[in-house]
């Protein structure tokens, strides 16, 4: 017994040693990221419910399956490609005077056969940090998913998801979302919780895809006026968004670096100091401001009120590590209000059929968030070179990310379109993807199917079958 007590005392002395403290700190970090990963799963539960609620009944199963299979595809592709892209491309492209050094130790740590990419007794952090980034990757793909609902092929979506989730977004993260990225080192680019890096780029990518994908059959009248498809279950959509918001707290937390042996214990992705409380305040005030802005700008529309909350948070994410709560609240309100107008403009003026408003909510609000930092949070030293954040640095980031996201989405979807692999045949779209892809209706046979209705541009309700049959005759096959 006495030996046991001495052993415990010895352990306590070990724990108090510098080496013991470092080990404690590492294990604390490992646990921290683990719980952020668990929490971030709710983002995908949310995306699934959100999208399955907003589509028509005939596409519910296909929509949910698309969200689930995102995980099946982006996980291995990000493992084999994505982490290498992030770790090896921070200085820039493999050309020019500041090209990436692919032989550096940091780069080697990102290759899939690295000794740090499996159980390793000397490295507790690499795998769990990789997993946090993986969950960000799923998020980028799910953002694009919402824009393409009800007519994209599952396989086309999965290929595009792999490209966006495992190459495109993580390349911009290497450049502008790391302490050693070239945008950070040279321009002080500041996007602490990924307004542009995740949301802006994914929104731009989605815009490139929906340009090639085209609108759903019957979405626009011959005169180009937008009709509305009635969501099959708006309650599920709102529930999905609330789940997504819960997961966002994990997303926010995972964007920080934790080190209990260094004051103040927390740093943003650029290794500048912040605190967990600071960013949690901003996300919460972001929701408050976003809901308010969305509600009034949309005149109380439930979908845009809740989407406004999302847009509000995205709009304040870039500066969440330094914003005052009041500034976060006001900027979120403004972002959400502007996003509602942007969403309507994209749908009605650009005639882009983005089913959940992803281009506006993620793309527009994301890039606006970058701009807000340049205007309201300039002068914060960022990255290893401690270059001040500035409007110029933010504009440089926007000028890099916008074409990167849009062009990659546009070109990849154009290739699929040329191969006739992008969109389901019109017969399938009209009948519904569930019957064609999964040979069954979501609901039991005795669950009566209500007549599908649409809303004309003038607000009148009409039976969809008539409108869609008319629109189908104009589809070029």
């Amino acid at each position, binding site marked *: 017994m006495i*030996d*046991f007590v001495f*052993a*415990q005392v*010895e*352990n306590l002395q070990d724990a108090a040693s510098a080496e013991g403290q470092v080990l404690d700190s590492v294990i604390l970090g490992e646990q921290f990221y683990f719980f952020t990963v668990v929490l971030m799963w709710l983002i995908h539960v949310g995306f699934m419910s959100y999208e399955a609620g907003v589509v028509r009944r005939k596409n519910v199963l296909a929509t949910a399956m698309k969200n689930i299979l995102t995980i099946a*595809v982006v996980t*291995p*592709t990000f*493992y*084999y490609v994505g982490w290498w892209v992030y770790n090896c491309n921070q200085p820039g492209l493999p050309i020019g005077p500041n090209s990436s050094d692919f*032989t550096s*130790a940091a780069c*080697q*740590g990102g*290759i*899939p*056969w*690295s*000794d*740090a990419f*499996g*159980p*390793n*007794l*000397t*490295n507790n952090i690499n795998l769990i940090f990789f997993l946090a980034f993986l969950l960000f990757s799923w998020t980028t793909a799910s953002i694009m998913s919402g824009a393409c609902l009800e007519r994209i*092929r*599952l*396989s*086309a979506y*999965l*290929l595009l998801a*792999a490209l966006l989730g495992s190459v495109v977004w993580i390349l911009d993260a290497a450049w502008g979302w790391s302490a050693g990225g070239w945008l950070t080192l040279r321009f002080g680019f500041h996007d602490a919780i990924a307004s542009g890096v995740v949301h802006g780029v994914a929104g731009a990518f989605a815009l490139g895809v929906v340009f090639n994908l085209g609108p759903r059959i019957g979405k626009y009248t011959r005169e180009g006026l937008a009709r509305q498809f009635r969501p099959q279950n708006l309650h599920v959509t709102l529930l999905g968004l609330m789940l997504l918001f819960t997961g966002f707290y994990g997303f926010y937390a995972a964007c920080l670096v934790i080190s209990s042996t260094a004051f103040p214990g927390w740093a943003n992705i650029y290794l500048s100091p912040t605190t967990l409380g600071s960013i949690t305040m901003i996300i919460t005030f972001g929701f408050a401001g976003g809901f308010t802005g969305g509600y009034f700008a949309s005149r109380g529309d439930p979908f845009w009120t809740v989407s406004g909350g999302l847009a509000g948070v995205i709009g304040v994410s870039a500066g969440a590590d330094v914003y005052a709560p009041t500034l976060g609240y006001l900027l979120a309100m403004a972002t959400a209000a502007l996003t509602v107008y942007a969403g309507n403009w994209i749908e009605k003026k650009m005639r882009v059929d983005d089913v959940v408003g992803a281009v506006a909510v993620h793309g527009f609000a994301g890039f606006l968030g970058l701009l807000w930092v340049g205007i309201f949070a300039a002068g914060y030293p960022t990255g290893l070179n401690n270059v001040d954040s500035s409007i110029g640095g933010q504009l440089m980031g926007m000028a890099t990310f916008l074409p990167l996201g849009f062009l990659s989405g546009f070109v990849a979807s154009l290739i699929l379109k040329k191969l006739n*692999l992008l969109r*389901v*045949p019109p*017969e*399938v779209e009209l*009948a519904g993807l569930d*019957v*064609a*892809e999964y040979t069954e209706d979501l609901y039991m046979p005795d669950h009566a199917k209500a007549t599908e209705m649409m809303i004309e541009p003038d607000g009148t309700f009409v039976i969809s079958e008539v409108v869609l049959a008319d629109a189908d005759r104009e589809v070029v*096959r």
Partner: protein
Amino acid sequence: MPGIIDSSPSCVTNNEGMKPPDDSADFILQANYQDCAGFMTFGPGSTYGEEGTGAETAYMILTWLGIVVTVLVLLAWVVYENRRLIEYSVRGRLGRGEEPPPQPGIARE
């Protein structure tokens, strides 16, 4: 010894019947793993050294196998879905008395 494949790296010492730990403070059985770092199945059992290069051949092959399978799965998804959609589309057109367009991979009567 394992019945089929011994995938543990050489840093792991296999000595069954070794003396158990002295007390509960030694609850992690470290002795057999004390020379290990990256001890995953087919892994190197160590760190790769200063430059971080030099993966074990078996681990490299395993990783490339995973990459190839991932690519094949993506291609299979495209082909499989394409066939299902075309079949459904053709059935729909035949049901309406229309002549279906010629499609690759679909046998015509």
